């Protein structure tokens, strides 16, 4: 049971990265390689808020959200908008992510920093498994976020507009939707969420500058397994990777964790090239 919890909470971390990728992907069909780094900054800002400024939790979260949202908005302006093709965006967002890692190292050093969690660090026992409050929170947060985003995209005008835009940009424009503005807003929102995610992830993983690189690929894989553009898919993909990693590390050895995840990825993609929840493109010729 403990192992399942460990796998799920780790999976939730990957899922959060995947969710971040997904929002941008849905809104603008571009890929934000710096998403994981934005979350890393979120974790650091949370640390600074709690430890250096000794702020209350609400203020810390607000600070993390604002800082990361601003960074995210800057990224959209300098790394996404001036570049039209997605191939080059791969390079520019990678560059932006690298800058973030470098800056984080300059400000916070290379040592892992312990990020406090507002609900404490008392171990909980649930159904015979032992788990930290932050791990429970991560799983809950990831699931809640996916549910909330799904709700938003179905129940709010803004959400409807984003989904519409991802289906048919021109038709969306003709309904009066400012496509560019909305894509920018989606970026800013991923920033806000990224800050929040960083605050949630930090207590589990420590705030450390190498966090971004560790998360980037796994988040990407979670997305590929779950299907690009699918929120539930990203969640499921994240959980799947987390569980596979834990069980393989436990019974086969840590040499084989990456390899197993790769095999899982290949298997899923061979059976369903668009991922578990990926929409099969309708051919409307």
């Amino acid at each position, binding site marked *: 049971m403990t192992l399942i919890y460990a796998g799920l909470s780790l999976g939730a971390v990957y899922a959060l990265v995947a969710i971040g990728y997904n929002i941008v992907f849905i809104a603008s069909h571009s890929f934000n390689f710096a998403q994981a780094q934005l979350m890393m900054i979120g974790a650091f800002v949370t640390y600074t808020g709690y430890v250096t400024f000794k702020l209350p939790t609400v203020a810390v979260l607000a600070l993390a959200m604002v800082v990361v949202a601003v960074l995210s908005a800057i990224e959209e302006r*300098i*790394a996404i908008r001036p570049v039209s093709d997605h*191939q080059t965006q791969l*390079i*520019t967002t990678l560059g932006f992510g*690298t800058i973030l890692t470098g800056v984080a190292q300059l400000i916070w050093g290379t040592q892992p920093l312990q990020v406090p969690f507002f609900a404490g660090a008392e171990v909980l026992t649930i159904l015979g498994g032992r788990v930290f409050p932050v791990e429970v929170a991560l799983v809950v947060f990831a699931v809640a976020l996916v549910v909330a985003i799904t709700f938003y995209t179905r129940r709010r005008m803004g959400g409807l507009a984003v989904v519409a835009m991802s289906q048919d940009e021109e038709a969306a424009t003709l309904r009066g939707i400012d496509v560019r503005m909305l894509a920018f807003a989606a970026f800013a929102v991923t920033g806000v969420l990224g800050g929040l995610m960083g605050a949630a992830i930090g207590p589990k993983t420590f705030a450390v500058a190498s966090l971004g690189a560790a998360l980037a690929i796994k988040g990407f894989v979670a997305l*590929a397994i779950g299907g690009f553009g699918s929120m539930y898919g990203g969640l499921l993909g994240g959980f799947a990777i987390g569980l596979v990693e834990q069980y393989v590390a436990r019974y086969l050895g840590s040499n084989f964790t990456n*390899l197993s995840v790769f095999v899982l990825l290949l298997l899923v993609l061979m059976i369903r090239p668009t*991922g578990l929840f990926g929409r099969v493109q309708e*051919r409307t010729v």
Partner: protein
Amino acid sequence: MLQLWTAVRKVPTWVFPAAIGLFVLVLPLLGPGYELTRQIELTLILALVVSGLNISLGYAGQLAIGQAAMYAAGAYTAGMLSSAGHTDLLLQIVAAGLAALAVGILTGIPGLRLGSWSLAMTSFFLVLLVPDIVDIFEEDTGGHLGLSTMLNPTLFGRSLAPDAMYYVIVIVAIIWFAVFRNVVASRHGIAFQVLKQSPVLASSVGMSVFRTKLTGYAIGAVPAGFGGALLANLDLFVTPEAFTFHMATGALAASILGGSMSVYGAVFGASIIQFNNDQSSNFAEYSLVFFGAFLLIGGVLLRGGVAGLLRTGIRRLDRAAGLWPRRPAGAAGGGEAGGGAADAVDLPPIEGGALEVDAVAKAFGGNRALREVSLRAEPGQVTALIGPNGSGKTTLLNLVCGFYRRDAGRITVAGTAIDGASPHRIARLGVTRTFQTPLIPPGVSVAEVVISGRYTSDEVGFLSAVLRGPKFRRIRRHDLARAEDMLRLVGLAHLFDTEAATLPLGQRRMLEVARALVREPKVLLLDEAASGLDEAEVETLAAVIRRIRDAGCAVILVEHNFGLVLSLADRIVVLARGAVLAEGTPEEIENDVRVRDEYLGIVEPGDAPAVEEAGTLPERTAK
């Protein structure tokens, strides 16, 4: 100044890289010092890796960015061979190339099936696996510590001095880039570009899409393997830390910054990244920020890469010097007027074949796009297919070309049933087509576009493309001559060397006709070939089509321009609501009241979702 440029441009282009290569080769004689030679060594090794990326990413258009894994495969192959006492460098390089090729093929088969981001993902993940795999085979690879048991390399039984590696690296690089250039300039290189532009186009000239993709990916692995072997022997040490994600992104950045779709761009890009690696260590703790900013700014500023900028610059100078657009190379002294009108070229007879469509039906979901359509297009005739939007014309074309599987009925080309054949097989049966939106790969000359239509005629192997033997030359000469004939036929001969994608729409359409025709097809499908043409161009087109018909080809014309159809067609088939409404000579059709009403698109009884959108091609949705 411009005269100087004119003189420079008279020198064949291959001379410049050859001269630079030679210069680099003899550079140590000038005593440049260790640091520079070391930089050149590392740059060239990186350039080998990047050039592989250029093939798969730049030319074949596959988001396969895991070149670092092939690089590692090469390095470890060489390292393990050397440790086992097989110190011959030539052997190691060949083995490393083969090992990389094997990795490329093994990972390419699943990866390429997926395409786009999934491919990017699996290939990036491959890089992540390198340390794990190295670790699992620790006994042979040295694991995390690295492989430090390599012996000094030998060549033809003689031990190599440490300095000699420089020459080996430079020579390997020169040879590879010559090979690379030859492949890219051959029809195989053009084939990659055709594929990148559009899989539909690729299969319509007879290429197997998957095989071509895999070839591109696998060939891209080979130089990375060479690079690995050279790196291992340069340092006599192989560490998994040389093949990290960072290295992979560096190579990707080098490819994009240098210009992915270029041969020598790999060298530019590799120099930039290598010098950056060198410089950034001077920034110590700022090195990450420096590298990141570099990628960001480089990505924004150098769209198309250094090679792209150079190309633009050369084009400008050419234009200023009056060298562009150039005259046809083969038609020296011909003094073509260069006008738009088609020259009176005799089109040799074409052995046409009848296209028979028999009771073909096709439904999308519940909606019947075609129901029991039968028609016959005779060789030596123009059969026009008309009908309102949504009547099933494009669906029929796609069925004939094999992009759709029909639900019922039979289609035969010159008596051969196409059954379930894939598009490229149907193309090889002698069916060619043009597209509503002309599909012309960027960066390819007009002549090469036409030659790409001959992909299946006079097949040329890779090896002979690389070696450029007599057979290759003969076929090449033939290709050029045929291309020139076709271009003269459609009135584009004066644009022989121009970059095709820069032509205006009308000329792009004519170019497509030339490409479709160069293969001497049995059946030629023209999909709205006249749309967007001005009156003069329509006249030229009509004249060309008549000549094609007279040569014996079966021409199928899907067209909205009623006047053109009436003047050109021998028979007209009118489709409406997925069925044949009428069929007959132009006179009969012109006077058919129902046809007129239908053609103006009065109404269709079935209330079905629209399946056809004008101008929509299959690959738009397949992206």
